[in-house]
């Protein structure tokens, strides 16, 4: 296996302005998508037109950064060409890699653009075993897999010993509790899902309803959480809600936390991880720039042999505010 010289920091770019901010803050690579349902962050006001992507690639390449284009929803029946054209457009724009999960997209890129663009397997493909990853590598020439958020750091190390493609691990940002690409909770409640529409718990289905007990945050009429009068209300993401089961109310699936695996960067390096990914294409450029700067310095410090205390100090500002977890990277999360 090729051991990377230096871990790559892969950063979110929801807009052209965020792309520039992330690159200037030290991203080795940015990832982005087109302004439609071919990508899993299909939100109003986000994403790139084809000319914007071409310009973004020129900007990033000018500063030595790569651009990875996410075409990571599943193509609809009878509309596969739209997903293929998105891949073609990404290649025309000079993208360094396409991040895909659907066999239809992987097959198209492998057949038509081999040698011009790398294929990365999206986390939405949920490939977490040597057999599955090996299959995608042999069949489509996939060069990197974004690993499902199921494995502990030790298991990632074992996986890396068993495969000969690169791995990319989420290190910071939003956290899916379910195996991504295998979750239909959103379409069950709202009719729209990550796999089909590139959205989860979409804002147009959200309501905040006040009553005598306080406020209910609802999604398509289903109460996802309740707040006492004056208590700050969160966004009703399905898997981060409070529910009643077995006679008790609890955050049954996960608390309203986000992922912060900053303290595990050295562990990821030792586990043979090639790239660390920051989630948050829906985030503004100020936030992205700040997070990227902090993780840039932390990754550089790890590469230079810095100790845990120094890494914690560099990332301290990113640990404030909302509640955080290292998720499945620590085995006790299960």
């Amino acid at each position: 296996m090729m051991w990377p010289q230096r871990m790559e920091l892969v950063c979110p770019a929801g807009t052209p302005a965020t792309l520039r901010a992330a690159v200037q803050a030290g991203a080795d690579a940015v990832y982005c998508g087109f302004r439609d349902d071919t990508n899993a962050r299909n939100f109003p006001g986000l994403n790139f037109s084809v000319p914007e992507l071409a310009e973004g690639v020129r900007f990033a390449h000018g500063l030595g950064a790569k651009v990875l284009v996410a075409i990571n929803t599943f193509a609809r029946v009878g509309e596969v060409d739209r997903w293929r054209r998105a891949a073609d457009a990404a290649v025309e724009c000079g993208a360094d890699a396409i991040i895909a999960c659907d066999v239809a997209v992987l097959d198209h890129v492998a057949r038509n653009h081999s040698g011009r663009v790398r294929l990365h397997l999206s986390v939405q493909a949920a490939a977490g075993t040597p057999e599955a990853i090996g299959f995608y590598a042999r069949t489509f020439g996939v060069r990197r897999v974004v690993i499902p958020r199921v494995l502990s750091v030790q298991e990632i190390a074992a996986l890396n010993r068993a495969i000969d493609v690169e791995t990319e691990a989420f290190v910071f940002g939003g956290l899916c509790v379910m195996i991504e690409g295998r979750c239909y909770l959103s379409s069950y409640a709202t009719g729209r899902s990550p796999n089909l529409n590139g959205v989860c718990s979409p804002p147009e289905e959200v309501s905040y309803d006040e009553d005598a007990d306080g406020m209910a945050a609802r999604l398509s009429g289903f109460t996802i959480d309740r707040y006492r009068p004056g208590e700050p209300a969160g966004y009703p993401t399905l898997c981060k809600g409070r529910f009643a089961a077995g006679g008790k109310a609890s955050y049954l699936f996960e608390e309203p936390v986000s992922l912060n695996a900053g303290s595990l960067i050295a562990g990821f390096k030792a586990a043979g991880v090639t790239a660390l990914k920051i989630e948050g294409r829906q985030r503004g450029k100020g936030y992205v720039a700040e997070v990227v700067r902090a993780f840039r310095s932390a990754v550089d410090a790890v590469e230079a042999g810095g100790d845990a205390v120094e890494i914690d100090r560099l990332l301290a500002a990113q640990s404030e505010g909302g509640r955080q977890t290292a998720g499945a990277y620590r085995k006790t999360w299960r």
Partner: protein
Amino acid sequence: MPPFALTLGPVFFHWPAERLADFYRRIADEAPVDRVHVGEVVCGKRMPFSDPCWPDVIERLERAGKEVVLSTLAAPATVRERRSIDELCGDGRLVEINDMTALPARSGRPFVTGPFLNVYNEVAAAFLAGHGARTICPPVELSLTAIGGMAHARPQVEFEPFAFGRLPLAISGRCYHARLHGLHKDSCQFTCEKDADGLAVDTLDGQAFLAINGVQTLSNQVHAFCPEPSALAAQAVRRLRLSPHTCDMVEVAGIYRALLDGRLEPQEARHGLSRLDLPGTMVDGYAHARPGWHSVAAAG
């Protein structure tokens, strides 16, 4: 018009071996289904409990003329789980693949893809057919029209919509039964065994919503898609899947058999199902390209 076939999917829940043996004995003797899936799909930790019962179950089902399919895990992780998939894929019987882990081991020989594998379009269906897929049970969120789009484009593969049962909505690395009981997955004490149809998850306002089954999340409501046979035929669909619950599955199979034979109207079939001891109210939104919890047939 050629006849429609019925499949009994795998049991998602942690039923004790004796319960499984009793269940399949009755299915073998009485249920009008053509094909029966056996094996653990949700959690590899349960396999040591159920594994010993399968040889007798399979023998009994085959003696009764059922086609047996060996289902495999949806989210294999450990070496032992991966090995189980490899071994099952070597069997001469039909195998159900629920994760791409199984594909290299089974490629070139016939298999079924379960609802955990993402087959969303005709290109993916053709790709899998090229590797040996004979029947595809698509993701539950796809409508009958979307499934029909694939079926018309790929007549060499058989499509099997998920028609009855709590909908398998998500799978996780985390065990929610363990979490609810203050435990971790690695020392879970198998509390999921207490909930033979899954444990109901209600909203804080008392709305029935979801159900948990270890690492799996299902709908609380029971998907009960009862189409006119002609509506299935129009979408080139010739087979439906029924998912086992503790209610009388022989009766469920009988109702669907009568529906597909034209002996029961859809409304009568739904009425028959509603009289059984179902774990939730009946819905069918997904089949109609609506949110899964909607009940389109009841409204119409």
